[in-house]
């Protein structure tokens, strides 16, 4: 059984339909990429999954539970973390406080310390700057902090929204290496990206979104060689 199952969701902003009935699934241990251009509905899809928006039709099933109507703040405790778009850190709190906020839904203090140690291991730079207000970090560091904070809830599935947005190519490489590591450590990854080339290079499978519909899907390596994709998203 799939870990996450999206069944025919339709999402509206007022009278405008952003998602026109899409279905897909994420299996345990996979890295899944949702790619597409601006306004294709990638972020909307992700926000529907994490409970920030509710769909008009369709359902989201996570580990066998229907979470369509469950508010976002409760879904975190069920094992799904969300790294929102645009490096949203708590700018006036320190890096350490930010990370601790990530474990907000957890109670056991020693376990939280253990997770903190593993997060510091993946992001050594966060440990160096743990007492610094998060607002003073660079863009790349803030993205790392947002990812580290999501990992603090020890999720089974981590949903990332445009982790490469606004970062230099070197940092983008670094972020994607970390995503691969997160996946190797046993966390399932659902990735929304505009940078199709990078996303396809690390994903197992991918879905291509266009104006609220899935137009293509399949093995990431195969999609990379697809003529249509090459032309539209990879600029080759």
């Amino acid at each position, binding site marked *: 059984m799939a870990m996450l199952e999206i069944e025919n969701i339709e999402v509206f902003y007022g009278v405008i339909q952003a998602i026109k009935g899409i279905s897909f699934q994420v299996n345990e241990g996979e890295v899944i990429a949702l790619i597409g251009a601006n306004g294709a509905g990638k972020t909307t899809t992700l926000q529907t999954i994490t409970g*920030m928006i509710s769909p008009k039709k369709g359902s989201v099933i996570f580990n066998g539970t229907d979470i369509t109507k469950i508010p976002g*703040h409760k879904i*975190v405790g069920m094992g799904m973390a969300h790294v*929102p778009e645009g490096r949203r*850190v*708590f700018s006036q709190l320190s890096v350490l406080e930010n990370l*601790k*906020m990530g474990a*907000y839904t957890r109670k056991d203090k020693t376990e939280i310390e253990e997770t903190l140690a593993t997060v510091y291991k993946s992001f050594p730079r966060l440990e160096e700057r743990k007492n610094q207000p998060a607002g003073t970090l660079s863009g790349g560091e803030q993205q790392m902090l947002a990812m580290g904070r999501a990992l603090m809830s020890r999720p089974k599935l981590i949903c990332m929204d445009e982790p490469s947005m606004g970062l230099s190519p070197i940092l983008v490489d670094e972020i994607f290496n970390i995503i691969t590591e997160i996946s190797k450590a046993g966390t399932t990854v659902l990735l929304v990206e505009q940078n199709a080339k990078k996303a396809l290079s690390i994903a197992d499978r991918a879905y291509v979104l266009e104006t609220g519909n899935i137009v293509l899907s399949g093995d990431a390596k195969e999609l990379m060689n697809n003529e249509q994709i090459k032309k539209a998203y990879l600029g080759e």
Partner: protein
Amino acid sequence: MFKKNLKKNNVFVTYAIVVVAYIVVEALLLTGNMSSLMQGLLVPLCTYSLCAVGLNLCVGYLGELSLGHAGFMCIGAFSSAFFSVVMQDAITNSIVRFIIALIIGTAFAALFGFLIAIPVLRLNGDYLAIVTLAFGEIIKNVVNVLYIGYDSTGWHISISSQQALGLAEDGTMVINGAQGITGTPHDSSFTIGVILIIIALIIVHNLTNSRTGRAVMSIRDNQIAAESVGINVKKYKLLAFTISAAIAGSAGVLYAHNLSTLTALPKNFGYNMSIMILVFVVLGGIGNFRGSVIAACILTLLPELLRGLSDYRMLIYAIVLIAMMLFNWAPAAIVWRQKLKAKFKKTGEEA
């Protein structure tokens, strides 16, 4: 650990300042060195400090600008004064009566804060400020047309006029529309005011340093991120706003029991007052409760101290406001203050 201690020390410095100020004022009172004008200002000082602390919780920690806190003060004042006037003969112990009145006033302000927050907190920024401003005005205006009295047949309530109440000969008016409530027992004092300020400071300090406080601050910093880590944004926003309104309500209780005639004028419960309280909060430092108390005291005393200068006093008041703002928040001034602090610490260690 070190940081925690530092925070704790800071909190105690605040309490110490309040206690020292209290002792100094009491000493001045005992030795008869305080003018009657100044004596009359003591309770209002506490009132404004208390309200500023309450608003600072909303502005500094929740990060929402409320311009309706005078309205919550108004609710606290009228509900508690109503109780005290009615129960004046039934409960003769003024302290017991005041404590019950305080609980009633605070609870009513909290209740209204909660009810108003439900629709208002769906907004943010300027929109929220505008709507709270409107709510504050609505509360004040409703109180102004409220007529409540009782006679042998029971309670009468009207919102049109005194005649519409149809009170019998033996009836007593409690709230008389624009003329407000008269005959409130004079139950509040400077001592009670200081105690209330300390209680409010303890509450807000404990709140802001708790798990709940961190949740509220994370909402201020970034609402979407707060939701993404599993914080119930609505719940904590409501909670912080309600507590903030309750503290403003307790300030209203203090205010009401210092006056024999309580009326809801634009001067005391209108938006001008809300803005005044906001000025205290901004000048004292957003998120800095000690600063709120100090700014409220200085800015309330200033116009009175400058009274001798008659026409020029508002001019000087404005200049002092600007000067304080510059001194408080200019980067150079902050650096200078830090240097000064470090110097003090050094000499302290040597000694």
